[in-house]
C-alpha cells in the first residue's frame, strides 16, 4: 500500500493534533476563518469524530477582519457544534490603554499579540494549535512543530528543543505554553490541493469577485469597513480580485484574478512567480528579519 503525499501529510497532522489532546490539559485551536485554519478544523474533525474536540476554537479579532471570514467562522462553529471563543483587540486597547499605531500603513496586527497572551492567561491554555507553515517564511522554516513559549509568548530560536522522529515533548512549566503547528510541512499548494480533494468550502473572498480597492504602493488594498484611510495619492478602483491569504484588512493585499473555482485558483497559484507572503502581506516586508523579530515578541 502506497500513500499519496497528501495522505502522508494528513496523517502526520492528525497525529500531531492527537498528541496535543493526549499531552495537554487545556489546549485551544486558533481559528480565524482563513484557509489554513479551516484546514485545521477539517483535520480535527478527522482526528476526533465521532467525539467532541478536546479544545475550543479561539479567534483573536482585530476588529479589522473581512466580514466574509467572520460570517464563515460563526457558521462553521455552529455547523460542527464546537465551542468558539472570540476575544477583541479593541477591548485590549481600551482596557490596557494601548497606543494604536497611526499613520499611512498602520495595522493592528502587532497588537493581536497582547490579546492573544491575555486570552491564554484568561483560560490558562497550555497549548495553542495554529495553522502556520514552514514554507511561508524563513524564520518559520526553522520552527519546531511543538514550539515552547515562555510566559511572554517569546520564541527563542537558539533554545529550541530537539524534536526527533514522531516523538513530541509537550512537558512544560506552569505559565509556559506550546504553540503547535500540525501543517508545518505543508506548502501553500498542498493546502489548496487538499481543500480541493476534501471538497472543503471556503469563504467567498478566496474566489474572484468585483471589489472596490485602493492602489497603494502598487498593492491592491480593500476599502471594506473603512479600515484603510484613503490618502490623496491613493487611486480608487474597482477590480476583479481574489484574496490569496485572508488576514487583517490593513495588511492583506488582493490579487487580480478571474478564478471563480478551486481548479482555476490552483492553476493561478501554480503559475505564479511570487510567493504567498510576498504578494499579499505588507507586514513581512519591513526588514529581512521581520518575522523572526515578531515571533520573539510572542507573535504566532
Amino acid at each position, binding site marked *: 500500500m502506497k500513500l499519496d503525499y497528501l495522505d502522508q501529510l494528513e*496523517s502526520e497532522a492528525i497525529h500531531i493534533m492527537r498528541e496535543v489532546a493526549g499531552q495537554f490539559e487545556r489546549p485551544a485551536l486558533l481559528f480565524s476563518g482563513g484557509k489554513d485554519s479551516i484546514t485545521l478544523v477539517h483535520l480535527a474533525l478527522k482526528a476526533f469524530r465521532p467525539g467532541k474536540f478536546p479544545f475550543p476554537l479561539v479567534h483573536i479579532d482585530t476588529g479589522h477582519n473581512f466580514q466574509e471570514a467572520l460570517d464563515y467562522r460563526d457558521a462553521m462553529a455552529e455547523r460542527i457544534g464546537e465551542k468558539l471563543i472570540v476575544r477583541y483587540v479593541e477591548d485590549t486597547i481600551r482596557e490596557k490603554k494601548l497606543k494604536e499605531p497611526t499613520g499611512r500603513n498602520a495595522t493592528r496586527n502587532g497588537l493581536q499579540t497582547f490579546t492573544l497572551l491575555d486570552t491564554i492567561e484568561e483560560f490558562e491554555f497550555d497549548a495553542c494549535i495554529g495553522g502556520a507553515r514552514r514554507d511561508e517564511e*524563513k524564520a518559520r522554516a526553522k520552527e519546531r512543530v511543538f514550539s515552547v513559549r515562555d510566559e511572554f509568548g517569546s520564541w527563542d530560536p537558539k533554545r529550541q528543543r*530537539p524534536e526527533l522522529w514522531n516523538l513530541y515533548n509537550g512537558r512544560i512549566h506552569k505559565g509556559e505554553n506550546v504553540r503547535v503547528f500540525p501543517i508545518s510541512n505543508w506548502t501553500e499548494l498542498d493546502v489548496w490541493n487538499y481543500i480541493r480533494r476534501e471538497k472543503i468550502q471556503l469563504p467567498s473572498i478566496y474566489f474572484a469577485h468585483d471589489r472596490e480597492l485602493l492602489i497603494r504602493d502598487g498593492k491592491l488594498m480593500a476599502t471594506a469597513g473603512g479600515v484603510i484611510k484613503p490618502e490623496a495619492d491613493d487611486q480608487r478602483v474597482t477590480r476583479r480580485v481574489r484574496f490569496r491569504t485572508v488576514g487583517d484588512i490593513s495588511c492583506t493585499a488582493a490579487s487580480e484574478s478571474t478564478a471563480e473555482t478551486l481548479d482555476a485558483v490552483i492553476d493561478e497559484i501554480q503559475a505564479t512567480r511570487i510567493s504567498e507572503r510576498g504578494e499579499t502581506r505588507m507586514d513581512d516586508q519591513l526588514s529581512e528579519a521581520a518575522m523572526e523579530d515578531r515571533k520573539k515578541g510572542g507573535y504566532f
Partner: protein
Amino acid sequence: MDLLRFITAGSVDDGKSTLIGRLLYDSKSILADQLEAIERASKSRDDGEIDLALLTDGLRSEREQGITIDVAYRYFQTPVRKFIIVDAPGHIQYTRNMVTGASNCQLAIVLVDARHGVAEQTRRHSLIASLLGIPHIVVAINKMDLVDYSQDVFSDICIHYAELAQKLNVKHVTYIPMSALNGDNVVDRSESMPWYEGQTLLEHLETVEIADDLNLTQARFPVQYVIRPQTPELHDYRGYAGKITSGQFRKGDAITVFPSGETSTIDAIEIAETELEEAATPMSVVMHLATDVDISRGDLIVRSDSQPLSSQTVEAMLCWMDSKEFKVGNKYVLQVGTFRTRCSVREITYQVNVNTYEQIEGVQQLRLNDLAKVILRTAQPISFDPYGTNRASGGAILIDETSNVTVGALMLVGEA
C-alpha cells in the same frame, strides 16, 4: 505522487547552501520575489554575484555568522515527486541539531569537497546518517570545477569512501561528481564531465526507490488518545486513536496490548468514521477491539504474531543533547512511542569518537553532542523493537524532569 525527505548537512563553506540553492533554482522552485530579496542582499556583499547560499540561512545570527545553526525545512516538487529538504548544520557543536533533522529522513546527502576528499566532517556526517538508520546515502563530490573535473580524483574519493561505508551500517551508497556553484550534475547534466554516466542529483532523488524502506512486517500502534463520545446514541463507542508506526493491521487480526499483555481481536479500523478492511503505516486511524480491554494513552497495540521486546534494562546508542552532563546514576523520563516512564543511567559502556569511530571506554560522563553506547534501567518495562530493524518503535527520547527539555536521543539496541 510520493514524498521523499532528505537531509543535507554542512555549512556555507562546504557548499551545502549553494547546493540547495542550485537545486531550488535550477528546478525553478524559487519565486521571483524570493530571488529579488537575495539579489538585494547579495548586492550588499563584495562581489555582487547572486549568492544562492542566502536562500537558506533563516535566522539573523546565521546570516551574520555565515553558518547554519538550526535545522530548516524547505519544500519543492517536480512532476514526479515531492521533496522535503532538511537543511542541517554541519559543525560539530551543532551535532544535536543534525541528529534532530536526520531522524525522519530516508536519504542523506553527504558533501565531500573534491579538493580535500573524505574529511573529518564526512566521517562524522556519515556516522550520524548511519546511526539514525538513514537507508540511502548520496556522496556528493562537490567543487569538481576546482580539480579540473578529474575522473581520477572522483574515483579515488569513491574508493576511499567505500572503505568507510563498510565500517558503517549503510545500505545504499551513490556517488555523484558535481559543481553546485556552476550547476554541474545537480539538475542539469555536466558538459565538463562526459566520463560520468550516472544520474544527476535530481534524477537520483526523483527515482530512488523508497517504498521498500517502510517496515511492513512489525505491526505497531501506539495509542495516543481514546475517543469516547458518551452520547446516548454512541454510548458504547470506544475507539483507540493513533498512528500505525510500522506494519499493517486487518480487521479480525489477533492483537496483544503492551505492557499489560492482554489480548483481543480487531473489530474495526476507521479513518474519519469510515471503515477500512486493512490499514498500514503511516496512516492515522481509530481502532476498535472485540472485547473490553483496559487501554489508555501510552499503551502499544501490536499484532500478536510479531511481538516487540519488553524489558526494564535496555541497551541503546545515545546522542546527548544538553549542556548539563549525562552521568551514571542520573534519572530522566524516557519516552518511546506514546509511553513515558522514569529511568536511571546504569552504565556508559563506551563513547564513540565521532570523527575516528574509535570506542572510548571508561568514560564517566557525557557532554553536549557526545555519542555513546549506554545501559538504562526503567521504572516500568518498555516495549520496543531494535532501532536497526524499526526506526519508529526503536527511537526514544530522554526528557529532563526538572527543565522538561528533551536532552537525549536514543536508538534502542536491545535488552541488556
